[in-house]
């Protein structure tokens, strides 16, 4: 039944989260240097684990709190409101590899790999995209041949976030080339420090180096590291991708809402386009900001709908693609609005790790509608899977 109010328990939970975050969140700014980021993110994860806050919606058997997606969302909301840095390096382990292992891995694999993720001992990265595949993920060609008890992997992955900080990689390889392209893919747990792996950072247009290319030259991975059945990795991977569209980017949305409020603040204090009045006095500026505010509010409502659906059906469904598309395009628009507002201040590069890092934010925003499935792919998914249009 449609109802905005949270239960007494949920409100108490929110209060506890807020209090705990206020007392325990890192006060030191997240370092810019990637080597330091690893230690920073893992240390903060360890603090969360020690405080009993790791894995809100992870089942108790894997060390989580076993709460619902609503509590998980409350956590992310409060996390975002506290202005805490993105948990970028631990993201894949907690929201991507972890959940996949939970649903598809063997008991042995689970007990070996899940606890270290929550405890903040390891960092996971993804190994899905390839230079030749892009949006056509299933066309991947990194290949693995069975040799005794091992797979021997040769090929290349790209757009791997934080590969240079990681311990483990969720890796898709082609183990059979005889069937259709969705067949013959295997999902394997790869020790990123294995001999034959080379990681090269990719510098992006905003000057950051969060992504990397990973090269595999006769890399041996034990067959025991295959998750699910050999050659059935596509299904395993798809279960992970759906997860991405759940609560996981609630924190990003909350951050976007606060970016909009920052822009409002800038518009109040900065001279507007006429060179005289404050920018907010300009009707066009005010309405664009008003619209941005309205859109982030609607985005929150959409997320609430998605979470309500997850609560009821266990999955956010393909409608998650609508939220991803809406969020992505909105975030880009907000960054563009910021550039228009900044006027000639937009010539100055300021990293998004800094105060008023709007130019960095703008440059970083281009990746949003490309990574994690381009906006074009999202529109295909919405058209085909939500609306049922023909392929």
């Amino acid at each position: 039944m449609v109802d905005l109010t949270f239960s007494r328990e949920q409100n108490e939970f929110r209060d506890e989260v807020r209090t705990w975050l206020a007392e325990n969140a890192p006060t030191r700014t997240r370092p810019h240097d990637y080597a330091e980021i690893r230690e920073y993110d893992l240390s903060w994860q360890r603090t969360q684990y020690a405080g009993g806050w790791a894995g809100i919606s992870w089942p108790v058997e894997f060390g989580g709190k076993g709460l619902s997606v609503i509590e998980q969302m409350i956590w992310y909301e409060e996390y975002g409101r506290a202005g805490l840095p993105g948990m970028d390096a631990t993201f894949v382990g907690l929201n991507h590899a972890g959940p996949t292992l939970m649903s598809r891995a063997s008991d042995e694999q689970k007990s070996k790999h899940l606890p270290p993720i929550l405890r903040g001992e390891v960092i996971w990265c993804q190994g899905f995209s390839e230079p030749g595949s892009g949006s056509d993920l299933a066309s991947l060609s990194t290949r693995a041949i069975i040799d005794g008890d091992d797979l021997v992997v040769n090929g290349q992955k790209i757009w791997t976030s934080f590969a240079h900080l990681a311990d483990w990689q969720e890796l898709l390889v082609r183990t059979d080339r005889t069937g259709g392209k969705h067949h013959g893919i295997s999902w394997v747990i790869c020790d990123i420090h294995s001999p034959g792996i080379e990681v090269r950072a990719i510098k992006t247009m905003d000057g950051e180096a969060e992504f990397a290319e990973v090269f595999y030259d006769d890399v041996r991975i034990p067959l025991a590291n295959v998750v699910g059945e050999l050659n059935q990795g596509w299904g395993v991977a798809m279960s992970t991708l759906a997860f991405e569209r759940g609560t996981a980017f609630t924190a990003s949305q909350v951050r976007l809402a606060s970016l909009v409020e920052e822009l409002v603040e800038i518009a109040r204090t900065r001279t507007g386009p006429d060179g005289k009045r404050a920018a907010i006095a300009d009707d066009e500026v005010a309405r664009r900001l008003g619209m941005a505010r309205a859109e982030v509010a609607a985005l929150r409502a959409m997320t609430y709908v998605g979470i309500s659906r997850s609560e009821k059906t266990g999955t956010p469904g393909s409608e998650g693609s609508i939220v991803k598309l809406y969020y992505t395009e909105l975030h880009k628009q907000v960054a563009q609005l910021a550039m228009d507002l900044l006027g000639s201040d937009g010539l100055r590069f300021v990293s998004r790790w800094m105060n008023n890092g709007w130019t960095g934010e703008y440059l970083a925003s281009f990746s949003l509608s490309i990574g994690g499935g381009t906006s074009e792919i999202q529109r295909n998914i919405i058209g085909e899977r939500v609306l049922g249009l023909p392929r």
Partner: protein
Amino acid sequence: MDLLPSDEELSIAQTVAELLHRELPRELLRERQNEQTSISAEAWSICAESGLLALGLAEGSGGVGFGLVEEALAFREIGRELAPGPFLSSVIGARLAAEAGDTELVRAIVSGDRQVGLILPRAGATFDGSVVTGEVELVDATGSDLLLLLRPDVSALFDRASFASALPWQSIDPGVRLEVATAVGVEPVLAVVDSAELWARAVVLSSAILTGISEACRDASTTHAKTREQFGRPIGVNQAIKHRCADMAMYSEAASAQLLYAAAAGDAESADFGYQASIARVVASRAAISNAEANIQVHGGMGYTYEHDAHLYVKRARVWANLIGSRTFHLSAVIDEIRVAA
């Protein structure tokens, strides 16, 4: 927290949809376009008898006792079905009468005995709470006994007879009747001050109508894209069509989610109810206009014939985008909060 309507809530909407579909099929809009009223007295009675005008009124006031959420879900069907008639002004008019304590008038309105049309004051017209003066437009008031003038600060019901000199003007929408009148010191029958909540409810219900329009257009385009063939294949295989449908789905989803959020905020008596309502309206107007316009393009030549329904959505969307506050009015409601407080 739950923003997914329950089966019970959905079944209320479903009942309304079936009623409207049966009593007010869209063909009627064209058939009745030269009739004096957009809805027949019989159809109005049937709708009233079903309880449609009393859904959100407390049982003690002679209503069904549902919340704004249920009322919004019902109005979303009114939008989706393009149902003609002064539903919104009658529902809000009854509520105004209830707030003023006139239970007899409430009964007369919700039973369908007395219809309430809408007054749309033009720039320069004034209403100080006691008299209205200046040029006004009357919307769907040709079958009405009463007229509603709605504002956040003060709202009132007028006797239709006080506007006897009103002249008809062709509306862009064959399902909406329009009249132009000049008021000189016309006094209301009933007035209430501090009507912000009444206003916000009307804003939510208008958002519901607009959301329904956007969804109907999304569905019509999707169906057409699946069935219409060009170059030997359904046109929906083309990304120009497929992605446009996807964008329509996105706009509708945003409108629908925010509609539920705002309605639930009303039911929860949240302090930000008016603010959330204006946001719902901004998002729903965009969805309705954008989807209705896109729907014509998806339908190609058929889409701009009078016989096809596509244009009816465009027209209804443009009408509602200007009633109960305009886009700039509602953006101001968001902006002004920005300009004043953070």
